């Protein structure tokens, strides 16, 4: 694949062209075949067939109308996917521009093709399709992938910022534009206040997560990350609620007849709609969590339950004119915690990936519709309106950011710096949401709809391309001030050491919770909710044997790829030692520096990582595996040399961590174990092994001796203080030789906090686990996906 890196655009350009050709061929075929507004009538083929007298049976005929819509939609999605593949092939691109840029370009391309081939009836987005089918997946994905602990920790700031920010932006932009419209010279005086306010509300809907990927590696700090995420999450909901209220106003009265009581009613409605939606979401979340408790026999329908209930919450809320978006968000957030524990591993993975896929498809389609409407004749360009819109968007966003954060900083323990605020300001990139709302403006109420659409498109293009591309450098400039000259090898090494040290000490400190409400909720949660909503049963042994099979397979793989061979860590080759103070040429030094930079282990990232378009494979997992393997090896070497046990020994041989085939006696309930393992709920700084162990630990029959495993019982503090025994099998004969007695003597102390224990301690360690968590949840999920198959490899002696 090397050549593709150097010539990144060619392959996918070719593919693009191919697909485009197919597209245009399809559309031109459409023009040729007899056609009777085929769009909504799949039965047209029969009509067409019957309207023409057939003299003979045609052996080969073309019927495009029948498949037109699904065919074109599929082609578009495929085109966007191919473009994404090409985008990611050139590895530097994703760091340069947000992926929405790409989607917009693809959309414009499709739009150009459709326009160029004079397509008579392209599929068009209408209100139903958008609100019922395209929007829910996007919102669901946002809500599901939101990290709950940081969200709730910052919820005050997030609500304050997202809620008030959206309102300030909407009304600010609306009012300013209204004032501009009053100026006769621009020819806009027929746009009244309500229309301007409505436009303000739809243009203030931002999509900042689109740019998160761009400055991801600059390691934005966690609260900032959460603000951006939280804003994206709540913003859509608030804009749509506002939009609907204002549309209701527009339909209801003539402008002059609006009384103050109507405005009050509007505000009350806003609050009710919002809170009602959230309430519905929570209720549905609990119901679906409860149902997943019983699905262990038919795990194939678990994803279905998750999706259907979320969608149902959306629809139910919409029925009552409540905010479906907030409902589905609340449902996802509530459901996630319990569902994750109840569903099987495959279901969990399926849910994650399917959600990403659905939301990605939705967004692609919206951007394509946007592209289609960009390239077309239905524009109305009004210089004044558009320029002022752009200007006001930026101005009002700046005002709202700085004003609101100034206030909220007074109440925060760790206030946001000006740099953070600048980043938040600059990440106000508009996205699919604004376009959809603009596109769906009813033409009857908005005679100048085209102008609005044009203005929205301009704002979107401007923010996505210009802000999206420049935000990366901006963040890097604001964040890391690197010295221009290169650091010496000394400095590099020491810097990295200090980074690791700092990360380690941060882990020792754990995460600190600030809210008593949260602690109380957790108590309530543990005592009541979990008992109702989480499964009790033990898994069947078929799952157990499946895990075992996969562990063996992974073990074989690892040995074959040489990771476990001890030759990589051989003792220093004395013979080749460079003696004394040999003068090294600058190139040597350069290459040394290169080696160091490239090969040093990355510091564990504590900040979250979320990519809207992608579920990134966790590269840190590979690193973690390597580190643990090495520790195992050094420990094994030292044990072989007959050293005493590591307590009080020098550094590298200290680990006694058990990462091995999980093995257990029938007691511990899966729920307890899964509870230990999982992030947000795991209340312990569980050791990696125990996490893996626990997740796996089920009732294994004790007769799995064929792997020559030994069991070393271990005590565990269980829920309610009942001890239970876990066995740690040791595999490979070498380990047996080392001395079982030693390990028995080394029986580690109980390593878990039972989930129920004291909450003051539980609370903090829970957060720690969940912070390890956002990072680790991915690792754990990956591990679970591999069926915790590398656990047997990372043996300790």
């Amino acid at each position, binding site marked *: 694949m090397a050549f593709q890196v150097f010539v990144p655009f060619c392959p996918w350009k070719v593919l693009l062209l191919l697909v485009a050709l197919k597209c245009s061929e399809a559309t031109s075929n459409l023009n040729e075949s007899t056609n009777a507004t085929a769009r909504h009538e799949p039965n047209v083929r029969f009509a067409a067939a019957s309207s023409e007298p057939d003299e003979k049976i045609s052996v080969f005929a073309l019927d495009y109308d029948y498949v037109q819509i699904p065919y074109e939609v599929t082609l578009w999605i495929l085109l966007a996917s191919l473009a994404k593949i090409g985008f990611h092939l050139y590895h530097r691109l994703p760091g340069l521009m947000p992926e929405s840029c790409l989607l917009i370009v693809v959309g414009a391309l499709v739009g150009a093709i459709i326009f160029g081939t004079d397509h008579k009836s392209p599929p068009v987005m209408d209100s139903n399709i958008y609100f019922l089918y395209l929007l829910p997946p996007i919102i669901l994905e946002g809500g599901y992938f939101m990290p709950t602990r940081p969200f709730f920790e910052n919820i005050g700031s997030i609500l304050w910022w997202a809620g008030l920010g959206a309102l300030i932006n909407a009304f600010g932009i609306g009012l300013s534009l209204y004032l501009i419209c009053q100026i006769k010279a621009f020819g806009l005086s027929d746009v009244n206040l309500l229309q301007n306010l409505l436009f303000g509300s739809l243009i203030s809907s931002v999509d900042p997560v689109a740019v998160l990927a761009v400055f991801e590696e600059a390691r934005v700090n966690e609260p900032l990350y959460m603000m951006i995420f939280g804003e994206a999450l709540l913003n859509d909901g608030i804009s749509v609620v506002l939009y609907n209220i204002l549309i209701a106003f527009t339909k209801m009265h003539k402008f002059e007849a609006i009384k103050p009581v109507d405005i009050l009613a509007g505000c009350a409605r806003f609050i009710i709609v919002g809170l009602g939606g959230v309430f519905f979401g929570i209720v549905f979340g609990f119901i679906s969590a409860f149902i997943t408790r019983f699905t262990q026999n038919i795990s194939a329908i678990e994803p279905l339950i998750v999706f259907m209930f979320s969608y149902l919450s959306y629809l139910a809320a919409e029925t009552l004119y409540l905010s479906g978006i907030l409902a589905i968000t609340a449902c996802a957030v509530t459901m996630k915690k319990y569902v994750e524990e109840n569903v099987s591993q495959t279901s969990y993975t399926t849910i994650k990936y399917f959600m990403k896929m659905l939301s990605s498809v939705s967004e692609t389609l919206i951007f394509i519709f946007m592209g289609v409407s960009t390239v077309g004749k239905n524009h109305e360009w009004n210089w004044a309106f558009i320029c002022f819109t752009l200007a006001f968007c930026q101005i009002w966003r700046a005002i709202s950011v700085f004003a609101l954060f100034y206030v909220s900083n007074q109440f925060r323990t*760790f206030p946001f710096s000006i740099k953070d605020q600048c980043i938040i300001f600059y990440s106000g990139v508009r996205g699919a949401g604004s376009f959809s709302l603009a596109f769906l403006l009813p033409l009857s109420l908005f005679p100048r709809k085209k102008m609005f659409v044009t203005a929205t498109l301009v704002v979107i293009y401007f923010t996505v391309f210009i802000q999206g591309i420049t935000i990366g450098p901006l963040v890097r400039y604001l964040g890391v001030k690197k*010295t221009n000259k290169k650091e010496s090898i*000394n*400095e590099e*090494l*020491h*810097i*990295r*050491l*200090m*980074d*690791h040290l*700092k*990360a*380690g*000490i*941060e882990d*020792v*400190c*754990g995460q*600190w919770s600030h809210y008593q409400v949260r602690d109380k909720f957790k108590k309530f949660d543990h005592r009541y909710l979990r008992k109702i909503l989480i499964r009790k049963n033990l898994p069947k042994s078929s799952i157990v044997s499946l895990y075992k099979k996969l562990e063996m397979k992974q073990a074989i793989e690892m040995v074959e790829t040489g*990771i476990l061979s001890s030759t*990589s*860590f051989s003792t*220093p*080759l004395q013979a080749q030692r*460079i003696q004394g103070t040999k003068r*090294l040429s600058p190139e*040597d*030094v350069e290459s*040394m520096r290169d*080696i*160091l930079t490239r090969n*040093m*282990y990355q510091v*564990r990232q504590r900040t979250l990582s979320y990519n809207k378009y992608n579920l990134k494979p966790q590269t840190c997992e590979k690193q*973690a595996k*390597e*580190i643990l393997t090495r*520790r195992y090896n050094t420990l094994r070497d030292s044990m072989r040399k007959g050293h005493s046990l590591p*307590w*009080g020994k*020098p*550094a*590298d041989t*200290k*680990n006694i*961590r058990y990462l091995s085939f999980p093995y257990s006696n029938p007691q511990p309930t899966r729920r307890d174990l899964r509870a230990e393992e999982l992030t947000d709920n795991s209340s312990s*700084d569980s*050791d990696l092994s125990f996490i893996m162990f626990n997740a796996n630990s089920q009732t294994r029959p004790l007769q799995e001796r064929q792997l020559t495993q030994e069991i070393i019982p271990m005590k565990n*503090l269980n829920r309610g203080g009942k001890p239970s025994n876990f066995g740690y099998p040791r595999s490979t004969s070498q380990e047996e030789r080392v001395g079982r007695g030693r390990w028995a003597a080394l029986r580690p*102390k109980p*390593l878990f*906090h039972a989930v129920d224990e004291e909450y*003051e*301690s539980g609370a*903090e360690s829970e957060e*720690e686990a969940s912070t*390890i968590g956002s990072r*680790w949840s991915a690792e754990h999920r990956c591990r679970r996906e591999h069926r915790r198959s590398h656990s047997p490899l990372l043996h300790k002696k």
Partner: protein
Amino acid sequence: MGSHSSAVARIPDADDIRRETGFSQASLLRLYHRFRSLDRNKKGYLSRADLQQIGALAVNPLGDRIIDSFFPDGSLQVDFPGFVRVLAHFRPINEEDTRTRDPKEPEPLNSRMNKLRFAFQLYDQDRDGKISQQEMLQVLRLMVGVQVTEEQLESIADRTVQEADEDGDGAVSFLEFTKSLEKMNIEQKMSIRILK
């Protein structure tokens, strides 16, 4: 959690600790809770096993050494004051601290020198006050991935010692170590925000 004052009263020697480390009352309380949550059996002290349970440290390349740094002089237990003392090194340096400090008093634990000393002892395992080439090599081995060969590591270790070593004894003393890092912003690198 109750009101702060009554909770702080539960911490033994709270005032002494605060004076020595400079932590605020709130931070001290949080650290105490953290200490107690790490101390699984409520022994009143932490052993190595307790710290090893912090999963994230297991995948930190320097995890073992970091844990060791909590147990100075080969002891097997660390009590709360000891725990806090180590963490005090990572307090952010406050501007007012440096200005109003009485020069006759010992340096606060989070001074630049003390931070550097803390980092130094991560390298210097045998506590002889110098980082030998072997010790540098050991640290390098811990921190670098498996793809790098042993010879490369050795030459890098050699070069590192060479760069910093001024008096030619083949090892890096603490002063030489400090000198090689004089341009670096240690105060920021080795400070943890939440430990204010």
